[in-house]
């Protein structure tokens, strides 16, 4: 077992983890943050995307020990003072989600994108979200939502 400390959504969390434990399972099963979903075994779908020091990572592909000493933001940490983050609000207004399963990862990937590029074009959005799969929307309203959030 290894002792690690991760700042999750602003709170410092100290944990003992097995070296083989993936960050996503530490978030979900040890810290009770079940908003981050798991949908594949191969780093293909992006459902588990979280921010690590502000940049998107797939938390199914990161060992928890690799997050030691770093800051993690999950979907639960995005809204502030009861107000949705502009990306969350845009997904709501533009109907960027249906079943909602890919949504936390998709929203985190979009937040990361807008952190790097405040005003992406449609094709830049589509390229940037290539690692996040959605089976419900056909991506039309997801792309709209990201453009909408960028305009806010």
């Amino acid at each position, binding site marked *: 077992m290894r002792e690690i400390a991760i700042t999750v959504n602003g709170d410092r969390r100290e944990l003992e983890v097995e070296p083989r434990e993936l960050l996503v399972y530490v978030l979900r099963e040890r810290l009770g943050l079940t908003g981050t979903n798991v949908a594949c075994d191969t780093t293909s779908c992006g459902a588990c995307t979280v921010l690590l020091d502000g940049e998107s990572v797939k938390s199914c592909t990161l060992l928890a020990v690799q997050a030691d000493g770093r800051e993690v933001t999950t979907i639960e940490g995005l809204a502030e003072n009861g107000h949705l983050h502009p990306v969350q609000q845009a997904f709501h207004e533009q109907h960027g989600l249906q079943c*909602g399963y890919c949504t936390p990862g998709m929203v985190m990937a979009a937040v990361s994108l807008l952190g790097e590029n405040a005003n992406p074009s449609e094709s830049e959005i589509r390229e940037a979200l290539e690692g996040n799969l959605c*089976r419900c929307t*056909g991506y039309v309203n997801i792309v709209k939502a990201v453009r909408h959030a960028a305009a806010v």
Partner: protein
Amino acid sequence: MAVTEHETGIGASAPRKEDARLLQGQGSYVDNLTLPGMHWMALVRSPHARARIKNVDLSKAKAAEGVVAAFSGADLEDGWAGPLPMAWPVTDDINNPPHLPVATTEARYVGDAVAVVVAETRALAKDAAELVEVDYEPLPAVVDIEAALADGAPLVHEEFGTNRCYTWPLKGGEDVDELFKGADVTVEERYRQQRLIPNPMEPRGVLAQPVTATGEITLYSSTQIPHIARVTLALATGVPESKLRVVAPDVGGGFGSKLQVYPEEALGIALAAKLGLPVKWIEERSENALATHHGRDMIQEISLAATKEGKITAVRVRLTVSMGAYLMIITPGTPLLGAWVYGGAYDIKGYEFECSGVFTNQTPTDAYRGAGRPEATYAIERAVDALARKLEMDPVELRRKNFITEFPNTIASGLEIDSGDYNAALDRALEILDYDAVRREQAERRERGDAKQLGVGFSTYVEMCGLAPSRILGVLKYAAGGWEAATIRCLPTGTVQVLTGTTPHGQSHDTTFAQVVADRLGVDYDDVEVLHGDTSIVPLGMDTYGSRSLAIGMAALCNASDKIVAKSKKIAAHSLEVAEDDLEYDGGTFRVRGTDRTMTVKESAFAAWHAHDLPDGLEPTLEETAVYDPSNFSWPAGTHIAVVEVDTETGAADLVRYVAVDDVGTVINPQIVDGQVQGGIAQGVAQALWEEAVYDDSGNLLTGSLVNYLMPSAAELPDFEVDRTTTESPNHPLGAKGVGETGTIASTPAVINAVLDALGPLGVTDIAMPATPERVWRAIEEARS
């Protein structure tokens, strides 16, 4: 029909009620649920497509850390009350093999469960499953539909002496042989519908919670069909239906793949009861590829007879369909859901259809978004284009010449299409596309020999959805009915609960059902909560599939609303001391005609609750249930147009534009309807261009993960240009038709027709799906040589 329009009423894009929790990570997907004392189940799955199970040694697994139990199929064999359900024996002589949750003597596909382990954690269960030693005797397997029917083929189920499962015929209209004899022109086409993996983003999951003292069990399952699951799992496990509660919490997509009753659901119940522990299982993606049913997988032969002017007179269809290794809940019936619509939107005189089901050593097939109707639409829309090529006619002109134009219309296959205007949708789609401009650009590229050729492809589809009139289902030998139930409960404080027997997994029931109730009963949209997916909270239901929630479930809701208004009116008349006939009703308020004396439905709910002064004989409380059985299917239709750029040097086909004009009847929420159409289009386009479940000759699935099963991302798809025309369904209280499957049903042939249109001058007339760059390139090379 008078409907009011405001921000949340019928016809408004009301903001979704589902979003607040889903956008903040507060969804209740099965994997998010944890119970005290919960243990984990892991399955051992056959690595062989066909093998005799000689011995299952569980000793090492049982001795492993954290393991509480391990069982082989044989250990559990006598504990089942019945097999897993197969609810649609389509013919009297169908070969229906026994199907237990864990195989006992023979594994019949890669992924077939052969043993199960229960341990304290997810990881320990998985570790222990790897310690189970199964002694297999590999046997020859069959994974090709036609090879399975050849003499001497290995038999998936030896007891039948054949791999043929059933043959089901349908004939209608004039004599088809005569029509073909008298035809000026005929086309005979053969298409392959490749096998697809539905891949909802949430894999399946099961959590079974027993109350050992009473024998009650609650099953949480990522399912589309909690009600059907309760009935059938009671029969399979022996847990009395009255003690079994099935809950579908938030479900992360289904697309038909969760319209199923799976081994893991029966096992969860059985092992939770046996061990007295909550038992959980969460499917991994690679497991999903093997253990969750697949879709499509058939060979289609379709022939058209026509006059030289292009009037289609007859359609003849023969299907040979892979069932996979077992018959799941509607495996045999799934291809037959398309049986009536291989004539498409066209006015034909004679129709002949035959479908044969065939066993193969593969994952069972069953419903995948559209189920039978995408296949039908693909065949007829491609065949119509083939006829257009033969007659050297514009595919648009040929379609117009053959459209059904009078409604209601009894089509040659025997059903009645209630309403539609196929030319209107086609006109609108051509206008959005600017058809002439696209054809001009195509001509220019052809003329200058551009490496990137342009193609435009049409799909003028009609679908049969809203499943389904119970009497027709009975005639077709389906075991259940097609009705739906809804309850409206007006609470004393003025808020309202709506119970629907349909159960969502992305379709926005919480929103649209609330919109309709708010509109009809004059309560605030925010004051309406929609409950679903729990057999203890919503006892009556037939669940969600076949675009039925709006078409059937919403009709039940409207009828329940009418009952509420009728009872409320009695209370209002009594309170206002007038006759019921003296009251007029509008948007939740009864008014004594010509006065300002009113009573609202909300006020009547309070009066009905305290019951101090109700009319004689009227029961207290304001709650009404309606059960609706449709008189007909519903018939969405429309025109989809794909524009594809094909690189003739690399074979890459790039979808550059997509126009969809659908007639889904009355629209409750335009934004949600657009979303349904867009998602469906993406799935249908994916079948045309990328997705395929590929098996090797030994029956190994080669596309068992999202690395090699090519689900499209945003980067592969364009924006979709969607619009609507509207003809109201005369059979639905709101005039609605359903929209869940239109995109998938319509889009696949539009894309392939576009690819072939691009390559027409090169002489390419066929391309197999998915139309990968390699396939397209080879087709071009073949045509050139």
